[in-house]
């Protein structure tokens, strides 16, 4: 790596199902203002901005241009990045590249979405091939449902097993003041909620949220001046695979997530991820994915995730806490969702996570999911990289 990079500040909006009181620019500015304040810098200190969302959710293109009043990039370099559900993590990775290159010292990453402004499923369907896939594709819910049927068949997991993920994440969200859905639910609540696409029920799936997140990435020299507890970005990895949904076997563990994790562990010298990682902020679009994809993190053998979850290993006080923030099942402003994972991971290793702080968390993993089962992974630690 050319230049070491650390996260020195994060900011989020109070996420809600509808922020009708603000437009997109104003929503973005709320998160940016909080991130600058957290980092102890002003707009003048920013060298460049990376911003992302998914245009088709709002039906407005070129957010890099029209949000200039709120995004802090007036007369500065700005780049828009859009990679579907992984947008937020890809924005973070692009900001990391900017600083690591040595060309920029302080780079602001922004992810945002106003999902209340359109029909989310209709918009997601436009991600699919216009001719071959859109006529049948039922958006994220139907796609994840077909995958979940595959998981149940392959691993023998039940709807009840999956429900534990929703219950865990929604319980954790109670401790996060920024989370969207802050109401405790039970396994029975999940099982009795309306069936959307078998086996995914209303409480098995992520919500649609209005919200924004901003994260300040800094070079080593700047980071040392700005904070005593920088969150060092150790490694990042991206895996985008094939064109059509049907080009990938989606009944087993997430191949892209597994490969991205393995790349990050190898480069970072992590041999035993289960013991060396203290907390995971995982992009879990559904309870079923949130369960089965634990295998792909390489923290257990294939098919063992159910046991980890049943034994409480992934709870706040377990050996490997997953989603202390409440995760995606509690908060999902899609273009911000991946960046929130990175922000929350940084907050954990910097000791800034407040009520949902995992005591003494040193190393955190953030993951992103999107598109045709794509994955991004970001490894963050309180220890400076070698």
């Amino acid at each position, binding site marked *: 790596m050319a230049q070491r990079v650390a996260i020195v500040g994060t900011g989020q909006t109070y996420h809600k199902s509808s922020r009708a009181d603000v437009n997109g620019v104003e929503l973005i500015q709320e998160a940016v203002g909080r991130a600058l304040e957290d980092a102890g810098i002003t707009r003048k200190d920013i060298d460049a901005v990376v911003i992302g969302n998914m245009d088709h959710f709002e039906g407005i293109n070129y957010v890099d241009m029209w949000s200039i009043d709120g995004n802090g990039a007036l007369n500065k370099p700005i780049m828009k990045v859009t990679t579907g559900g992984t947008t937020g993590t890809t924005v973070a990775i692009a900001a990391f590249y900017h600083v690591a290159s040595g060309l920029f010292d302080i780079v602001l990453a922004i992810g945002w979405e106003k999902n209340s402004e359109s029909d989310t499923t209709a918009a997601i369907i436009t991600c699919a091939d216009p001719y071959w896939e859109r006529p049948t594709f039922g958006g994220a*819910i139907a796609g994840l449902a077909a995958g979940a049927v*595959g998981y149940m068949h392959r691993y023998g997991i039940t709807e009840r097993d999956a429900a534990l993920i929703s219950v865990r994440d929604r319980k954790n969200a109670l401790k996060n003041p920024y989370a969207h859905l802050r109401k405790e639910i039970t396994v029975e609540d999940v099982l009795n909620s309306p069936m959307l696409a078998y086996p995914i029920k209303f409480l098995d799936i992520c919500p649609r949220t209005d919200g924004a997140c901003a994260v300040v990435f800094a070079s080593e020299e700047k980071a040392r001046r700005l904070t005593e507890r920088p969150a060092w970005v150790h490694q990042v990895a991206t895996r985008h695979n094939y064109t059509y949904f049907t080009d990938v*076997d989606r009944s087993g563990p997430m191949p892209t997530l597994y490969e991205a994790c393995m790349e990050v562990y190898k480069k970072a010298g992590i041999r035993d991820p289960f013991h060396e990682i203290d907390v995971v902020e995982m992009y879990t679009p559904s309870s079923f994915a949130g369960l089965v994809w634990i295998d792909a993190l390489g923290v257990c053998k294939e098919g063992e995730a159910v046991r980890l979850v049943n034994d409480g290993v992934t709870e706040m006080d377990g050996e490997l806490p997953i989603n202390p923030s409440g995760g995606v099942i509690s908060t999902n402003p899609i273009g911000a969702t991946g960046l929130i994972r990175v922000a929350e991971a940084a907050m954990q290793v910097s000791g800034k996570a407040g009520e949902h702080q995992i005591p003494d968390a040193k190393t955190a993993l953030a993951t992103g999911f999107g598109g045709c089962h794509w994955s991004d992974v970001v490894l963050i630690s309180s220890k400076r990289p070698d």
Partner: protein
Amino acid sequence: MAESRYPLLFITWDREQPYNYSIGRYGIRLLRELRDNKRIVGIRCPKCGRVYVPPRRVCGRCFVSMEEFVEVGSRGILNAYTVVYFSFIDPETGTQRPVPYGYGRIKLHGADSEFLHFLKETDLKDLRIGAEVEAVFNEERVGSFKDIKYFRVIR
């Protein structure tokens, strides 16, 4: 935000915006076969030998051009499925997609990729992974993906 129901907080805009997408000469070959012969064709990679449906020009794994069209079965194995109950706007039509509908990922015999299509069955009792399914074609075919009405379980 007690006032959030004030109508002036929103503007509502229904847009109609036509698009013209290219299917390309590879995809058109499949549509012609569907229309004229009720056959499904894929394409084989000269390097790795995988057969892809729908046919496309490039094998992403090998990054080489493909030219060898091959017929695959109109029957296959149901690899995954769901029944969709929630309604949503279909961006193709601008109206709500009729529900419930069955949706399956089908591994056609002779193909290495899966094929996405509607399933006739909407009762979960009739669906299982590993079931043999077959394409049901419309009597009147126009050279469209929807010349296949749906797939149905045969055993």
